[in-house]
């Protein structure tokens, strides 16, 4: 189940708004895995568990104000994404990202892949390669790629999220795609997972 498709029955949602544990648990059980997948792919580290926890705490506290116009999962996804953004913007994470990028030989401004593309295998191997290539992207670029390609955010939405423009999102996406292609394909970078 994707987060954007998740919702609770009306009675359960009302109980969750009232803070009843069984309803909050239904909310948690329904959203935990897709939300964790989203967070883990964006922040790519052990902080994902803490961010998931904090996102749920934020959501539980804000539930009484949830107007129900969009599915609950869409609303919760925006909370989780905001948490990721706060995390990636923290000074510690920014310096850590710089260290990692420096060790891989590229920076936010020149995010080419590592010198030797990892050996490609099919199926499971290709997925592992893709996970690794995704994790090796610069954090902001990775977030833009994931939100656009998997979560279906528009460039306008991403631009707004980063207090920037749609052009920012488009350029980061193009950069991310090029870097993924370079990491996944042969030296020509022509190959993308089929």
């Amino acid at each position, binding site marked *: 189940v994707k987060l954007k498709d998740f919702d609770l029955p009306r009675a359960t949602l009302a109980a969750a708004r009232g803070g009843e544990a069984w309803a909050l648990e239904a909310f948690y059980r329904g959203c935990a895995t897709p939300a964790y997948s989203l967070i883990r792919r964006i922040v790519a580290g052990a902080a994902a568990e803490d961010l998931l926890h904090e996102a749920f705490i934020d959501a539980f506290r804000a539930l009484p104000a949830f107007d129900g116009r969009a599915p609950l999962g869409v609303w919760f996804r925006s909370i989780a994404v905001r948490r990721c953004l706060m995390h990636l913007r923290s000074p510690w994470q920014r310096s850590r990202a710089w*260290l990692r990028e420096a060790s891989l030989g590229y920076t936010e401004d020149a995010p080419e892949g590592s010198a030797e593309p990892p050996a490609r295998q099919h199926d499971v191997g290709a997925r592992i390669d893709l996970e690794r290539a995704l994790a090796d992207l610069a954090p902001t670029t990775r977030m833009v790629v994931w939100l656009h*390609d998997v979560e279906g955010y528009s460039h306008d939405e991403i631009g707004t999220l980063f207090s920037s423009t749609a052009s920012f999102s488009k350029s980061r996406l193009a950069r991310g795609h090029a870097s993924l292609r370079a990491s996944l394909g042969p030296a020509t*970078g022509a190959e993308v997972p089929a």
Partner: protein
Amino acid sequence: MKRRDPLTPDESARLQAALASLPPLAPPDGWPRLIAAYRTRPASSARLTITGLAAAAALGLIALGFLLRDFDSGYNERVAVAEVERLQLRSAELEQSLAAFPERRVVRAGSGFTAVTLQDHILLVDEQLSEPASARPSSRTRELWRERVALLDALVGLRSSAPAELTF
């Protein structure tokens, strides 16, 4: 020579499909910790609202400010202690993961530099943690443990990442 041109629509579509088909990742069961953390705060918050309103009427805004401060420090203290225990466990797990890597691995210069930098940071954190806990607020202890876990996680990630970076 790597291509720098934009992906074709077909390449983009295949890449999007590949990303979307990555399997979901299930988190460890965080429900018990979550409901415990949630229960602590809202229940107290509700009491605080009532108390705060009464205090505002009786004592004015200054007295209310003191009540809020006292509440927050008490709450933060409990949360920090629980969080530190969890972070200590996580830290031990990551150290076990690190110990599992072969000793003879030689890393590339760039990765080696990063690993040494991370280890230096860990030493700095450990140095601060070795001072008596009573010498600092519990929130500071929690921050130090969070930093330690993040550093260890980065180190584990570095040692387990791209095989092309590692030689034997």
